[in-house]
């Protein structure tokens, strides 16, 4: 890379040390700047707008702290950025000597930046500092908006280079502009992110800690050979899921039922073709297979828990459903689920524990009682114990190892406060 720009380097170096006399800056004449632009022209006579675009683009990239510059290094980088199109590394230098043919304020600002007090080159702690705002802006932009924003800004820049009138030049990296506090700039980034992806919800359920990508699970329906996929993250309740499943299979069901008459009249139908998916009252029932391979009825557990554990969905004929299709589990597994690690946070919030325990398989068939000691000293180091009684009701299939007792007691000791 370096060899390529041997010719270019001295040119830039000369520019910086000799420099024009910046103090006689009258207006913001574009002619002046053009003059300088020419001087900066790289050997090879590259297309100016392309160079400009690149020059502006690096201005938007984060200035890496490693570039506390020595002159050669920085000029080298800027030279390399000049000649290499689309060399959009974050490592690109600021456009020292770039004179954007945009609105005049930016030209002036960049000039100032270069030849301000004690500025031998545009690198250095000052520029880092001064661009820390914009770098912060930029890194945030990169983080949150990804390529979209970068693309948007670069296209903005391109259009701006062609029109000298007002553009969104405010988005360009002027340090300390607009005059708002940093945390507000971060908020602005959040707004953009949420505007771009309206399906995303903010993560409030910390205890589940799901990552919010689309969660597609296969769904098959009895009697229909072709399976489909649904995105569980796109819905926030069982009702919506049921509706979606209905819509998904409605057409296929019609076709499968082979009723030509119905097919022609079905377009105005508004009621569910597949009613009662969730409440087990209809012809079909929605079940799911969880991450441990067990088949469960959809609707038992809280929605978020369902989303996090469901791996596959099935629409079964209700007549096919029977207790035996739901797998039994043994006592030991239940105990494991109720171990201390899982329940520690739950003890602070009893409702949470209940929800977790209800997430156990077949809890429709069990009853959970929670009891706490009579008094709980706050802020002291006494240990707290809680007893959880899990009582089995009829229909619960226990393993032979169980001694037939009607309930199990689990005891937990809370860690002392502050540990």
């Amino acid at each position, binding site marked *: 890379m370096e060899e390529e720009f041997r010719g270019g380097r001295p040119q830039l170096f000369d520019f910086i040390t000799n420099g024009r006399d910046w103090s006689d800056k009258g207006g913001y004449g574009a002619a002046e700047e053009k003059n300088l632009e020419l001087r900066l022209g790289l050997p090879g006579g590259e297309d100016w707008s392309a160079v400009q675009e690149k020059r502006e683009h690096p201005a938007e990239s984060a200035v890496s702290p490693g570039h506390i510059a020595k002159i050669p290094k920085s000029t080298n980088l800027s030279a390399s950025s000049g000649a290499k199109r689309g060399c959009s590394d974050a490592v690109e230098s600021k456009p020292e000597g770039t004179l954007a043919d945009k609105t005049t304020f930016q030209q002036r600002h960049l000039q100032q930046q270069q030849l301000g*007090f004690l500025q*031998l080159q545009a690198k250095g702690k000052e520029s880092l500092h001064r661009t820390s705002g914009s770098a912060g802006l930029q890194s945030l932009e990169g983080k949150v908006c990804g390529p979209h924003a970068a693309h948007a800004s670069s296209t903005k820049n391109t259009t701006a280079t062609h029109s000298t009138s007002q553009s969104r030049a405010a988005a360009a990296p002027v340090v*300390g*502009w607009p005059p708002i506090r940093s945390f507000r700039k971060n908020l602005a*980034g959040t*707004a*953009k992110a949420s505007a771009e992806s309206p399906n995303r919800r903010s993560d409030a359920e910390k205890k589940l800690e799901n990552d919010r990508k689309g969660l597609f699970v296969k769904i098959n329906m009895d009697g229909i050979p072709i399976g489909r996929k649904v995105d569980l993250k796109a819905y926030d309740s069982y009702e919506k899921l049921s509706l979606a499943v209905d819509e998904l299979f409605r057409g296929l069901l019609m076709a499968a039922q082979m009723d030509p008459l119905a097919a022609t009249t079905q377009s105005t139908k508004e009621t569910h073709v597949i009613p009662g998916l969730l409440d087990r009252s209809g012809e079909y029932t929605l079940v799911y297979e969880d991450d441990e391979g067990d088949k469960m009825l959809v609707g038992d557990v809280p929605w978020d828990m369902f989303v996090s554990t469901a791996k596959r969905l099935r629409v079964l004929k209700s007549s096919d459903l029977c207790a035996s299709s739901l797998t039994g589990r043994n006592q030991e597994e239940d105990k494991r689920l109720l171990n201390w690690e899982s329940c520690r946070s739950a003890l602070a919030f009893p409702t949470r524990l209940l929800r977790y325990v209800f997430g156990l398989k077949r809890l429709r068939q069990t009853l959970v009682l929670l009891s706490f000691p009579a008094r709980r000293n706050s802020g002291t180091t006494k240990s707290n114990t809680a007893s959880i009684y899990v009582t089995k009701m009829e229909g619960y299939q226990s393993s032979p190892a169980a001694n037939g007792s009607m309930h199990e007691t689990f005891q937990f000791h809370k860690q002392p406060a502050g540990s």
Partner: protein
Amino acid sequence: MTYFPEEVVEHIVDFLGSHGDRNAVSTVCKAWYQVDRLSRRSVFVGNCYAIRPERVVTRFPEMKSLTVKGKPHFADFNLVPYDWGGFAQPWIEAAARGCPGLEELRLKRMVVTDDDLELLARSFPNFKSLVLVSCEGFSTDGLAAIATYCRGLRELDLQENEVEDHGRQWLSCFPDSCTSLVSLNFACLKGEVNASALERLVARCPNLKGLKLNHSISVESLNKILARAPHLVDLGTGSFTIDNRSETYHRLINAFFKCKSLRSLSGFWDASPFCLQAVYPICTNLTVLNLSYAPAIQSADLTKLIGLCFKLQKLWVLDCIGDKGLVVVASTCKELQELRVFPSDIYGTGITAVTEEGLVAISSGCPNLNSLLYFCYQMTNSALTTVAKNCPHFTRFRLCILEPEKPDPVTNQPLDEGFGAIVRSCKNLRRLSVSGLLTDQVFLYIGMYAEHLEMLSIAFAGDSDKGMVYVLNGCKNLRKLEIRDCPFGDAALLKDVAKYETMRSLWMSSCDVTLGGCKALAAKMPRLNVEIINENDGTSESKENLSDLQKVEKMYFYRTVAGPRNDAPDFVWTL
């Protein structure tokens, strides 16, 4: 007058609230100086380097409340390097030695360390109130010290500080015996806070009126807190996202319904539009509403909420409210006095942002408006003229057109006439920020008409030195002037140096002032500290190698009786 017994003078002087009046009293004669000095309870130091802390403490031994401000205003926008200065330590140490009866400390834009906070907590047995605004340098360990040692603490107010998170246990450090809290604001903390300790704290503080949570506090927690403290007047919510129709949501509605005293709402971190409805029951009582941390809420939901707030006096929103939303505000909030519209989309195309139309609508609907901070993409002269006519009571008018040097889009003229109309009409204007395309003419208007102007912020404006000279000649009450990226040079700087002793400070960055000019200023005015902030390179270049003709990147000077400061970092040169 000298026959007046001092007790009587003291009694009279006690009625004087403002610092300015008190200062004036103290200059009348030695006797009155003494009276003021011994009876002054509240001391305000606008620039921490203007006077040595020891002098303040010696002069006012009975002070109960001390307010100190540190860094210049532009530090908020990253224009001042991190370790420029503004250390709280000498102030706290001096007060600890000379004024142990101190009850209240308010610091703004200062560097406060954990050691400082611990010293503070241990040194003042009657300490009641700590307010830190835009400060940095401390962590939650310092807060733990405050909580542990300040018996009888009434107020802990942390506004927009940078606080390092060293864990959530600081809140548990409030002892069980602490029942005196009236106001607690930790909204700026980034980390988790012990929610159950907070709930217990709230439960045992019956006088709690203000509580501002940070985003780690869940809605479930908020429910419990509101259940225990329905008498709250000022609430900043924590995280405000809930499941649809969940029990939590219903409890929240009920909780808000019981909060009959609630007048001020803020927070709404991560608020989703649905959750805002929980607040409807108390909207009609609200006087202060801050929705500026909730970028996910769009105009329709904002206006539904604000449309119920008839008594609103202070509103902070994001510009996604749009012009239409501002029309709703104008028609609903007739008693509005302060409006701040922050930009929500500074990278984007600004389709949903506000324009001059929104501002005109507000001005015609809210004639009592006296304080404005408005970020927009465009403004016209005619709009500003209309606003000036409709709202002559502005005391603070800050307009920021997001694109620098943007002219009136309709006429393509600079905005001189518009701002001129503002300063002509608003006789009590104390603070002004201008933006857009501006020539020297606007400064002529400001100098001519803005008689009471105390603070002026200028960016990317003006044509020549004349602009700055107009302002310095005209504004008799000017205290703070901050300028960036304007073509003002040495001639303007040195025109009337005596003026600078009547001002608190002046900031100029990216202007045309040279090192030689600054040196000349420093030579003429020994009671100014003229600081050059040069972050580039402190070590290899020495001062002598620099030409006087070289432009100064950042200059900040302020009047002082303390002489050059001894805590300046290498990159700050006091001439």
